[in-house]
């Protein structure tokens, strides 16, 4: 079922939702946008840069999360409050990424209680991308500017109205009172969705990339492509599909905390014996790329990248994953 809402009526709808749930939406934080709990609909930024700098994975896997508090031998584990949440304005690539992370955190054997609880409590209301930016390559890797995967509702922005495509039962409950989508708007929506594809060009060919990467595992390619890398890790911290974390005890606060971590740091894989399987940036760059473009494929037959472009946009030395993959495809040993 599809619905529509006049743009001027959106604040009222959000306020309705704010009565029943925490509503997260992109708001301006310094020079960027970031998902925050919306307290005033004036703060909403829907026409800013397409993607928030921090990926919304942080709403399910916070950058820093207390697992337990301890004092001497006693401890209490963190339990999450019951709290309905709506993430409004999440981009399709980021919602797609959340479904990839579900395979890690909501597995059969050991579901992560924090991830699982937050996922169950959250409705994802996505906003499609009318004008993908230059660093976007979602369609190359199997997502798209109006990809519905992982979303409960998909919103398309037209001139004066938003269209709302209901994807799940969870989503249906939020929009049942809205007017149905008019035929001419339906038509316009499809046109907008179609036109967005014009902004996106194939960044590289995915077919056979896994095999190629395995073939050049031991090649000099990795040394070459990692030469300018500073090892800052921003590509992984801001990546919507990167999920590595460290668990450390914060002794001053008496807390055991898990923090986002990155395979781009030397100490990440350093063992107590001094042995490090990834001692230089070239092995570490290889790990980042191969995890996304080979290992995920082996594990769940999906590329572990949704083409959001953050790693390209925010890299301080301009390393472009599209070039890295593209060049890997044609790499020949000298």
């Amino acid at each position, binding site marked *: 079922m599809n619905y529509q809402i006049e743009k001027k009526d959106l604040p009222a709808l959000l306020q309705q939702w704010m009565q029943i749930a925490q509503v997260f939406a992109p708001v301006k934080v310094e020079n960027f946008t970031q998902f925050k709990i919306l307290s005033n609909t004036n703060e909403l930024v829907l026409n800013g840069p397409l993607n928030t700098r921090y990926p919304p994975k942080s709403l399910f896997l916070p950058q820093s999360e207390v*697992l*337990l508090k*301890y004092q*001497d*031998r006693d*401890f209490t*584990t963190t339990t999450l409050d019951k709290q309905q949440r709506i993430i409004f304005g999440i981009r399709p690539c980021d919602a797609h990424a959340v479904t990839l992370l579900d395979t*890690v*955190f909501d*597995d059969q*054997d*050991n*579901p*992560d*209680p924090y991830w699982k609880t937050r996922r169950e409590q959250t409705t994802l209301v996505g906003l499609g991308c009318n004008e993908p930016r230059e660093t976007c390559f979602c369609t190359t890797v199997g997502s798209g500017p109006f990809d519905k995967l992982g979303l409960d509702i998909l919103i398309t922005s037209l001139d004066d109205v938003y269209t709302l495509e209901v994807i799940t039962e969870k989503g249906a409950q939020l929009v049942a009172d809205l007017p149905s989508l008019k035929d001419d708007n339906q038509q316009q929506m499809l046109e907008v969705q179609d036109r967005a594809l014009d902004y996106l060009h194939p960044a590289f060919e995915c077919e056979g990339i896994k095999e190629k990467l*395995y073939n050049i*595992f*031991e090649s000099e390619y990795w040394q070459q492509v990692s030469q300018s890398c500073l090892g800052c890790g921003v590509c992984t911290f801001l990546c919507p599909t990167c*999920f*590595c*974390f*460290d*668990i*450390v*005890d914060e*002794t001053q606060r*008496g807390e*055991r905390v*898990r923090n986002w*971590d990155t*395979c781009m740091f030397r100490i*990440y*894989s*350093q*063992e*107590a*014996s001094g*042995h490090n*399987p*990834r001692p230089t940036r070239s*092995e570490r760059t290889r*790990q980042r790329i*191969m*995890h996304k473009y*080979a*290992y995920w494929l*082996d*594990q769940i037959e999906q590329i572990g990248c949704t083409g959001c472009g953050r790693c390209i946009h925010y890299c301080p030395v301009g390393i472009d994953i599209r070039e890295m993959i593209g060049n890997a495809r044609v790499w020949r040993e000298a």
Partner: protein
Amino acid sequence: MHNHNHNPYEPMPMHIARAYYESNDHSLKTLELVFDRAADREQFFSSYNPGQFCQLSIFGKGEAPFGIASAAWEGDFVRFTIQKMGTFTQAVHRMKAGDCIGMRGPLGNGFPIDLWHGKNLVIIGGGCAFSTLYALTKHIQHPQNRPDFNELIVIYGARNSGLCMYKNDILSWHERTDLEIHQAIDIPEDDWLHHVGYVPDVVREVAPSAENAVAVVCGPPIMTKFTLPALTDLNFPPEAIFTSLEKRMKCGLGKCGRCNIGSKYICKDGPVFSLAELESLPADI
């Protein structure tokens, strides 16, 4: 592990029942831990398989993974032998009987023991990595388990006699008829009655038959590196050679990403792999 209300990051409260140095130079210490809660004990022993590991937890020091060095039938305790290396293991070495410690586990797959029924087993260990092989040997030694396996050969090397672990027990293995034990040290010592030399050389000297046999190898990387070709020369196929990997691990649940090699997580898919499986993974070890 299938209790879905359970928080897998929560350590079980344990007490140290016994703590003693395992080596003359005090670099190795053995802890035997007992459960504070009966439910934890039942849960643990209902699923424990030799070759698995646990995350030990000391508040303020964090967690670190250690292989389990005891068989379930030995008693209601869980044994670990821990080498003093970094801040966590130094803290462990300062602990004594009666102290509290946290534990998560058992984690990982353990040895595929059921697949080895009816086989000859060649157990090859070096250094403190022998601890999980000790657990495996103890498991097999139990009269109820022993008939499941055929011949049992144990080859265990240490740098010197002072570093030999589980000394008194292993001394008694030389009298047993249900296994053949070969002990080795790297350099000659007075009064040493057994092999002198590196483990790979001892393996070649003992030359166990590959006929209907499985070899299990755990040791420092350099020992493993040279033992694998020795076994290959003795006609052990890669499918019949098993080893256990160690990695820096945090969660032990296949989530924190740290122990990833290729499509595998060492903590969840391992730590035990056949050589055939390892050969199919990228050389990222």
